[in-house]
């Protein structure tokens, strides 16, 4: 038996040895793959199934001065469907209701039956990427995810959702063109174009791994985080922009013009507060199509006469009081006849008057006299250069054009004998409206030229990354004497000259009209004009400068004074109302002697409101009651505030004599529905005070 056991053991150990040997071979093989050749296999694994995907950064917002959103990126979704992935069972059980849901809630291109056919036939074709709808917002996308079949998940249902971002402009047309856009198919435009790099941010990278046919992120976070674009805080004042756009729109419409532009600029800083551009679409509708303000070169016409005058003054060859012969409003320069815009038979007058009435002959004659001789022409040119009229403003909106001022020493630009007279009245030169405005703004700013700017800062998550401060381009474009004279000329235009009709009772402003003929060189073309007005307000302490150009007005007048001037006035007046700081303080004036009948009396309203008004107006009052609502009673030279009992609990209150705002506040807080007729103060109410309040509808008569 011992023998037997030994024999068995020897044989068993042999087998054990064999097993251990096999195990060693296997371990060695694994070791070779894992360690010896490990590097090579790991590299192969990475190459085969990993790739980097770009992760889009969120584009920055464009904000108005007060933080209102002018442009922002909203996510939207593209809904597609993999029709192959679902099983026959799932598909057949759900296709009816899915077709119904799509046709009803998502896309009515097809009827329910149409969608049913579409889904079935595309499934038969093996379509894995059927477009259901392109533009779906977040809310609808969430709903679509719950549709039958889709609610089974990506792999069983086949719903494919792709996220994109869409640029939205909450204010629509407002400053549309200035905000601009960046599109794949078109040249970038506006602020979006100019600041594309900063707005776009930087793309991130994410390591994606292939799992069957789709790539999924390896980690939840991107390897390289996308850096979101900066927000752009502009200098645009939403209210002013609205006013400007509205006024320009009315004028373009009223005068049946081809378009127009209006810019409002802050005199001291050069900040653009409003910039409106109108044109017409193919079917004649008015629309923000092109940024004329910076992208259209126009012959300025009479507004350029200021540059001529300043040049002459700077060269000290004239004084405003000197007299000049206007030749009856007609004059020949070589073979070309120049005429004044209005018929007059005036001969001798002052240079000041010649400018204020915008006499072409007067200004051209002066220019020809002093700059006509061949060797003097370059003197004029260098004066214009001194005033920076030959270079762009450098505003940070994509697409500003270079001005064209003829250089007498450059043979290539058709310098002729009549260039000086015509140039002096704003022809044969080309400037953008913004460049003209910038020149006038410098005059308003006592000769200091600022760089117009529309972007105040770049921000990231609300904190400022880069700030753009007002920048002085030139300390003085002319001597103080010349600037003073220019300012008085522009004030004169409004007081006595071509803009006299535009005078406002509320404040003084200064400016210059312009009416430039378009296509004057072409024969047999009906003459059209660009009507413009450029100036600043208030005249004595300029706060804003503004240019209005109406392009080719056809009806109801053509002249700058009657077409563009009123737009300027409307903008200025509304701006004046909006801006408290433009108003002279009341308490700077001597206190008004108060009379009983001048004091507000028998007014009903909130005590706090009254007190803050009286305090502001410095009116004496006695504040007797400690109640929310009061009744004012004028007595001798002061006002008493008396208690006004409005209501008991659960009763209809007495709102007679109140303003609508207060009345609505009280009544709606009681749970009543209010219908209002007329305007003014509440004179009658349909339910008597003291009735039980139980959500009735009450009518208020205002008068």
């Amino acid at each position, binding site marked *: 038996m011992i023998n*037997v056991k030994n*024999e*068995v*053991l020897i*044989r*068993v*150990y*042999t*087998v*054990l040895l064999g*097993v*251990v040997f*096999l*195990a060693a*071979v*296997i*371990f060695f*093989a*694994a*070791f070779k*793959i*894992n*360690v010896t*050749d*490990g*590097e*090579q*296999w*790991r590299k*192969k*694994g990475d190459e*085969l*199934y990993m790739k980097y995907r770009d992760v889009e950064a969120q584009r920055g917002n464009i904000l108005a001065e007060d933080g209102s959103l002018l442009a922002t990126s909203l996510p939207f979704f593209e809904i597609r469907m993999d029709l192959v992935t679902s099983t026959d069972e799932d598909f057949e059980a759900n296709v009816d209701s899915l077709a119904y849901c799509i046709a009803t809630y998502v896309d009515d291109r097809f009827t329910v039956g149409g969608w049913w056919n579409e889904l079935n036939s595309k499934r038969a074709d093996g379509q894995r990427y059927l477009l259901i709808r392109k533009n779906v917002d977040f809310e609808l996308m969430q709903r679509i995810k719950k549709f039958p079949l889709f609610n*089974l*998940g990506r*792999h*069983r249902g086949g719903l494919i959702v792709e996220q994109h971002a869409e640029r939205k402009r909450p204010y629509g047309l407002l400053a549309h063109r200035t905000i601009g856009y960046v599109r794949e198919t078109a040249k970038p435009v506006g602020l979006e174009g100019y600041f594309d790099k900063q707005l776009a941010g930087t793309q991130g990278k994410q390591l994606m*791994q*292939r*799992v*069957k046919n789709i790539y999924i992120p390896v980690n939840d976070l991107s390897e390289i985080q996308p850096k979101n674009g900066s927000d752009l805080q502009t200098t645009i004042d939403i209210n002013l922009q609205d006013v400007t756009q509205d006024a320009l729109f009315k004028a373009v419409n009223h005068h049946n013009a081809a378009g127009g532009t209006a810019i409002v600029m802050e005199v001291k800083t050069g900040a653009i507060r409003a910039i409106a551009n109108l044109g017409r679409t193919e079917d004649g509708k008015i629309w923000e199509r092109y940024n004329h303000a910076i992208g259209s070169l126009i012959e300025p016409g009479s507004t350029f006469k200021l540059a001529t005058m300043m040049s002459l003054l700077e060269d000290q060859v004239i004084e405003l009081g000197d007299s000049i012969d206007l030749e009856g409003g007609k004059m020949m320069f070589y073979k070309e006849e120049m005429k004044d815009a209005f018929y007059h038979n005036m001969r001798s007058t002052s240079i000041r008057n010649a400018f204020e009435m915008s006499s072409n002959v007067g200004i051209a004659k002066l220019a020809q006299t002093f700059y006509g001789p061949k060797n003097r022409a370059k003197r004029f040119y260098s004066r214009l250069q001194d005033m920076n009229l030959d270079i762009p403003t450098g505003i940070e909106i994509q697409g500003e054009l270079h001005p064209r001022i003829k250089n007498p020493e450059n043979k290539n630009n058709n310098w002729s004998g009549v260039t000086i007279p015509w140039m002096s009245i704003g022809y044969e030169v080309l400037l953008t409206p913004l460049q003209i405005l910038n020149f006038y703004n410098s005059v308003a700013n006592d000769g200091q030229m600022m760089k117009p700017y529309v972007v105040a800062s770049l921000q990231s998550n609300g904190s400022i990354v880069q700030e753009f401060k007002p920048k002085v381009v030139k300390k003085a474009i002319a001597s103080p004497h010349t600037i003073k004279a220019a300012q008085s000329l522009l004030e004169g235009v409004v007081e006595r000259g071509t803009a006299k009709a535009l005078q406002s009772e509320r404040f003084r402003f200064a400016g210059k009209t312009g009416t430039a003929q378009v296509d004057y060189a072409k024969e047999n073309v009906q003459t059209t004009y660009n009507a413009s007005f450029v100036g600043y307000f208030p005249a004595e302490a300029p706060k804003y400068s503004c240019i209005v150009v109406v392009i080719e007005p056809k009806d109801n007048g053509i002249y700058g004074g009657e077409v563009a001037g009123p737009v300027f006035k409307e903008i200025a007046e509304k701006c004046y109302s909006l801006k408290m700081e433009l108003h002279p303080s009341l308490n700077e004036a001597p206190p008004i002697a108060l009379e009983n009948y001048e004091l507000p009396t028998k007014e009903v309203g909130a005590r706090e409101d009254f007190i803050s008004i009286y305090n502001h107006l410095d009116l004496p009052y006695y504040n007797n009651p400690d109640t929310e609502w009061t009744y004012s009673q004028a007595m001798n030279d002061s006002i008493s505030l008396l208690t006004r009992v409005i209501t008991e609990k659960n009763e209809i209150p007495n709102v007679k004599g109140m303003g609508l705002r207060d009345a609505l506040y009280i009544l709606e807080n009681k749970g009543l529905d209010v219908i209002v007729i007329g305007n003014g103060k509440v004179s009658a109410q349909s339910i008597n005070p003291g009735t039980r309040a139980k959500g009735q509808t009450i009518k208020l008569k205002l008068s």
Partner: protein
Amino acid sequence: MEIGNKIFTGLRGDKVVWAIVIILAVVSILVVYSSTGRIAYEQRGGNTEFYLIKQTMLVGFGLFLTWVCYSWNYINYSKLAPIMVVIAIPLLVYTLAFGLEINDARRWIGMPGLPITFQTSEFAKLALIIFIARTISAKQEYIADFKSAFLPIIFPVLVICLLIAPADLSSALLLFATSILMMFMGRVNAKYIILLFFLGIVAFAGLIIAGEFIPEIRVETWITRFRDFMTSADGGYQVTQSKIAIAQGELTGLGPGNSIQRNYLPAPYSDFVYAIIIEEYGLLLGGLGILGLYVLLFFRCVRMVTKSAKTFGAMVALGISLNIVLQALANMAVSVNLVPVTGLTLPMISMGGTSILFSSIAFGIILSVSRFIEKA
């Protein structure tokens, strides 16, 4: 806890083997959960817990079967062996003729009225090993004799292996090898065993020729797999993926559930599970550790032989553990690209109902033997 303690202190038998079973069971649940992510999406709409729950329940039931088999005196298996063989042969014939075809191979039969499929070869395998152990121990007196000892053992071996071979050649070869080695260890004359080796080759050749006429014999698959293995330098797609997995694990692994290659490897939960184990647990813990567990199992059974009073018990334990360790080695050899793809599972780890349940039973029998050997 209290019950757990009670069970553990109450358990007898080889504690090392118990530990091996439990470690393998836990690894099985972890690895199967990790590697079934993709088929969970493909077949279960993303319900990844489905396979976790299924495997956990299977393994739990398996451990219960281990305990049941362990509780039973192993002498009973000896008595049952002839009947099991008698049942196994018609079952295999039935499977070949009417079985369910899954993945092109007819290895399963359905249970009437139940949504369960059952791999008959696993049952036959166990039956045969117990039968051989019984016969060898019963005929020890004249074990060298051809007619009275060799023939009665070899006859059922050939029948069963030939019946398994058409649909599952790998399992048949493995069982044949186990049988030969059992006979070798059981002191059967060496020259008969060499004869048997040649007989095996003749039978295999006959099978290939028969394959020309009977489509159920998967000759084509064998040829393709073998040719793939021999011709492609880096082993083709599957092997490339498997090697990447093994390399990615480096020495310490990517960590449980972090396998990347599970998404690319075909059947990462069975055929290539060893590669996934190395990828997640590293070459040392996963690669060497799991390999070591199987070798250790066989070693523990060898140790029983030195103690065993009765030859049947030792033979059963040796045979069963040898079959397990050989199958494990065969499975791992595929992952490390030493042999062509076989379709053999990693015992007690790979996903697959019958495989887990019969592995559990096998462990239970080993433990039963160890329990009585301890007593002796």
